[in-house]
């Protein structure tokens, strides 16, 4: 009964590569993006294995203070504080030098990376969640719902986000990691919300959405099962770039003393602690600074590469 008249054209379509394969082909040719991705993997590996790295690699705890004049490491006597009472710079035992209180900077950079990356990733997840739901609901329902949600979003965007974060951080008496995550996530979600709203606004008018409605699909099903998968490309790209931004944000907050609290090391509070001594002990600020630079650079390179690979039209 069924007609299979255009059978001849079946053969012709067999070798077409899927969207994912094409994106991977484009991504593979982007050397900078690959480098960024590998660097991120390295940082994440170091951060997640920090206790092991510190135990077998640097052999110093990030907290232990080596304040006596001479310490013995592997049978050798090493200066921790020099003749003027200043911390020692990079040497064979403290590869990145020691800080004012005699703690190993390298161990602290690794532990600090753990904190900074964790905070940035979780905060991005928070803003992704709020922005996704907010933007989707606003654009999907439109009309007064959209007007209300969009105005609230714009109201938030009107605040300078750093000041808003500082105000929130001061208002919260405690400043645990979770609070820092929530603050950063909360002040940044509007950017994702705006992108999502714009995308959903065009997607909801597409015929496949109407087809789903004609089949009897509910609003939730249409929003999150039909429309959401089509948002993946811009979201992956934006999320990667947002992680970079959030690392900087966490650093800024910690630098101001409102983020992660000492003695827990984060790149931001390490720079804050070493800042006053940059002319006598540059290594205390430069190494966490370089760590921030390379991490943010790596995320940006990866983000740019993903954008070019996943959405060639954006270029």
């Amino acid at each position, binding site marked *: 009964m069924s*007609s299979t008249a255009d059978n001849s054209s079946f053969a012709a379509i067999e070798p077409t590569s899927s969207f994912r394969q094409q994106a991977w082909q484009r991504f593979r040719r982007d050397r900078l993006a690959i480098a960024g991705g590998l660097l991120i993997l390295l940082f994440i590996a170091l951060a997640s294995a920090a206790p092991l790295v510190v135990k077998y690699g640097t052999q110093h705890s990030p907290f232990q203070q080596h304040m006596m004049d001479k310490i013995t490491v592997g049978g050798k006597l090493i200066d921790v504080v020099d003749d003027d009472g200043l911390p020692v710079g990079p040497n064979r035992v403290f590869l990145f030098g020691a800080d004012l209180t005699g703690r190993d900077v390298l161990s602290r950079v690794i532990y600090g990376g753990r904190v900074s990356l964790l905070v940035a990733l979780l905060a991005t997840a928070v803003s992704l969640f709020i922005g996704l739901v907010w933007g989707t609901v606003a654009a999907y329902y439109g009309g007064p719902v959209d007007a209300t949600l969009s105005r609230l979003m714009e109201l938030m965007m009107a605040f300078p986000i750093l000041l808003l974060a500082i105000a929130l951080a001061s208002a919260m008496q405690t400043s645990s990691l979770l609070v820092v995550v929530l603050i950063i996530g909360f002040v940044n979600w509007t950017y994702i919300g705006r992108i999502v709203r714009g995308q959903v606004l065009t997607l909801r008018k597409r015929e496949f959405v109407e087809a789903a409605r004609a089949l*009897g699909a509910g609003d939730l099903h249409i929003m999150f099962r039909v429309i959401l998968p089509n948002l993946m490309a811009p979201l992956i790209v934006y999320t990667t770039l947002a992680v970079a931004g959030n690392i900087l944000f966490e650093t800024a907050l910690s630098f101001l003393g409102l983020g992660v609290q000492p003695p827990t090391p984060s790149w931001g509070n390490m720079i804050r602690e070493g800042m006053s001594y940059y002319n006598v002990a540059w290594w205390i600020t430069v190494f966490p600074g370089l760590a921030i630079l390379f991490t943010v650079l790596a995320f940006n390179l990866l983000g740019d590469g993903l954008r070019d690979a996943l959405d060639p039209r954006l270029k």
Partner: protein
Amino acid sequence: MTDMLLEVKNLKKHFPIRKGLFSRIVGHVKAVDGLDLFIKRGETLGLVGESGCGKTTAGRLILRLLDVTEGSVTFDGRDVLAMGRKELRALRREMQIIFQDPYGSLNPRMTVGGMLSEAIRIHKLASGDAVKKRVAELLEIVGLSPHHSRRYPHEFSGGQRQRIGVARALAVNPKFIIADEPVSALDVSIQAQIINLLQDLQKQFQLTYLFIAHDLSVVKHISDRVAVMYLGRIVELAESSRLYESPKHPYTRALMSAVPIADPGAKGKRIILLGDVPSPANPPSGCPFHPRCRERLPRCDKVVPQLRDQGDGHYVSCLLYTPEFQSSSGRLGKSVIIDSDDQKKG
């Protein structure tokens, strides 16, 4: 009437035109403005008209994909417009739609199998392995192969995609399918295949179609009856052969004269309509066709003609075919036509 499946009365859809800072409503686009039609069980009703005359909007209104401004839609004895959420969901099983654009109507991020099983799962028509079996069955029904279920839409040609669209509509075992220009976006060679497929499926599953198109020859081929739409209204509705052989409404006559005849010797008399289709935001008073009509009467800009049965189910909405006009000035009607022809020669 038991053989009546769908009845639409005085259906209207006015889209507001908003302007300015506070989105003030400054007018309405009267996309559908008093549409009447009925479809009998098992038949195919063709709906033709120029682009922008409201054909697609009418289809969406019947399915309740758009909110109706005014009027009534009765499907299988039930009032569609009064339905609540639950009833509407149940209705979706019985009424389906095939879209014009085989590219835009398939979700690019969903496999064909995903799309078809979505329909089955929403209505809990099957579960587990039965879903897979049903998907394979559907693909075979529309002339595709079960192994296509893992592919994404972009891996198919236009004709194949339209087959997927048909399979999706069939997934819920509907009684009634609105085919919204299902072949307009396809190559002519593929058009025939899809039309044949639709006809086969109609016999196999006792389907009723509302076939929306602007291609008169396609509509003639598939339809039992044809309705002609102009500016949101039906101007003529009749059995397919009758409408094509003896069109009554001046607009239909102009349309029919534009159909190319596949005979170089045939001398068709082409009626050229003057002017453009008026804006549906500001439709003419009285009969919407009167500014372009060559046979207009003095009253045409004042009286809105009603769709009237001229016998044997040939419905026309034109003052020329009202009993008052036929009895009082039937001869005058003829002379008006001759006059206009003479004017053309001169």
